[in-house]
């Protein structure tokens, strides 16, 4: 009885007005979303930053036992091509002898194990590492040396002498082919 009169008044739970209210509110919500979404999306990185974030670096010209430095995401990135001796020396180290144990395989990409790509910042006191440009001291492990606190790294970027206790950070990147790497 009550329900019938409700429906006649158009105010019941399943009335036509109820349906129209839901329909109007949904259309309004969709329109609002369609208007607001472009503005939120515009705050995402613009095309230029997006492209520079996915920088491609040509590494074909990097000679053995030398490195290059590039800037990516506001960080100095060191890219070094290893010699056969450096690979052999570092492939089978006893893990427990390292301050921050890491296998050789975890420091290079499969198939391109003569390339090491690291963020060139000391993990102790944060400062740029020496040893990437020719003539700079590389430290006792033939890798990189921190001029600030004396931490020494091996050619794979693993810390070998403190006070730093973490290995060098490896940025996100992938080999497109033997000549090009792309940061992601």
């Amino acid at each position, binding site marked *: 009885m009550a329900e019938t009169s409700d429906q006649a008044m158009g105010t019941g739970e399943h009335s036509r007005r109820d349906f129209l209210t839901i329909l109007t509110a949904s259309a*309004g919500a969709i329109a609002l979303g369609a208007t607001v979404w*472009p*503005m939120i*999306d*515009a*705050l*995402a990185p*613009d*095309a230029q930053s997006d492209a520079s974030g996915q920088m491609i670096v040509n590494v074909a010209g990097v000679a053995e036992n030398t490195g290059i430095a590039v800037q990516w995401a506001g960080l100095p990135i060191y890219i070094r091509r290893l010699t056969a001796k450096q690979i052999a020396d570092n492939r089978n180290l006893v893990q427990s002898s390292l301050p921050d144990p890491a296998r050789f395989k975890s420091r290079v990409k499969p198939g391109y194990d003569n390339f090491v790509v690291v963020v060139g910042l000391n993990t102790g006191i944060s400062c740029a590492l020496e040893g990437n440009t020719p003539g700079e001291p590389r430290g006792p492990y033939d890798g990189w040396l921190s001029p600030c606190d004396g931490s020494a790294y091996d050619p794979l970027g693993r810390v070998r002498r403190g006070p730093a206790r973490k290995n060098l950070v490896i940025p996100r990147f992938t080999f497109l082919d033997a000549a090009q790497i792309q940061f992601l």
Partner: protein
Amino acid sequence: MNTDVKPSWMASRMPCLGGWWAGLTTPSMAREAPYLAVLPWLITAGLVFLTASGLVLAVYYNPADAFASRQFIAREVNNGWLIEGFHATGTTLVFAAAYLLLLRGMLARSYRAPGELVWLLDIVAFALLLLVGWLGFALTGGAAGYWSVMNATNAAMLLPGALGALGTWFFGGPDGPGTLARLLVLHIALALVIFFILWLRHGAKKAATPLPAPALRVAFHPYYTAQYFVALVVSALIGCVLLFFYPHFGQSPLNNVPGGPLALATGAGVPWYLAPLAGLSALFHGTYGGILGLAAGLVLLLALPWLDRSGPGRRAGGLWRLLTWVLALDVLGLGWAACGAAGGLSGLLVVVFGAWYFLHFLVLTPIVTALEAQ
């Protein structure tokens, strides 16, 4: 519908929310309002929209290299072209509503007691809107905007006494490399001041409007929200047509050339909503002529409650209404002529239409209203 306000989880913890909702759903408003009574609300909604799109633009805008950063926004930023369109078209809609609000106020004579304060706040908000609109036009970095800033700073610097000091403070000296950075801050800050003025206007309007008998009242929600929703949808439709088919509506093509000392803009080159004022300021010559015309145009609007000699409670006569409509056409014509649309006749037409504006307020308004009141 159940109008009992049950304290919800939120309302029991933050009672002001419950009070707010109760205020919206308690019958407290007249049973019906004219459709165009929605205009102040539409202007507020438009300003919210402009604030949102403006915030996004401000993220990427660079006042040191204004024109190039606008190209960057249009080409490199995700949906940047659309956000620019939002901001430009939103401005057109807000100004259309603002001009309509003034026309409606004059036709309905709502500026007379006890509505003078509402009218004064309307004009203050309108003047601020014009200023913010002009600042936005200046920020485009186009040739027309560049010369507009140059002329405005020069005139403001040269004003004597306190006004000159104010001008110097506002522009920070002659037009230079830092001017646009300063104008950007003022563009944003003054836009927020408009919200405050509209809030004051809302209070003044409420105080000036007599409440109907309790039995004749309805609640804001859903009765007024439904009406406002329809108005919003209609404006959004108009906005979409403008945005997608006429994205540069009312803008001078001169402004699509980067501003600089060698890119000379001919004519006013201002967007449509500034054009009538540009016409008024072109009426007077000399160093202070532009500012004089601008100020006179706005002061006459402010003075309207006292220029109307009809006394309280009188209905508007037919002649007054006709004259108001003629004034609306006159303002349109003034803007049209000020943009140089009439070719060689533009200069003459600006004088004719501008003279009619002053004639309307200073001579016709007092005489006609006094005659019709008898």
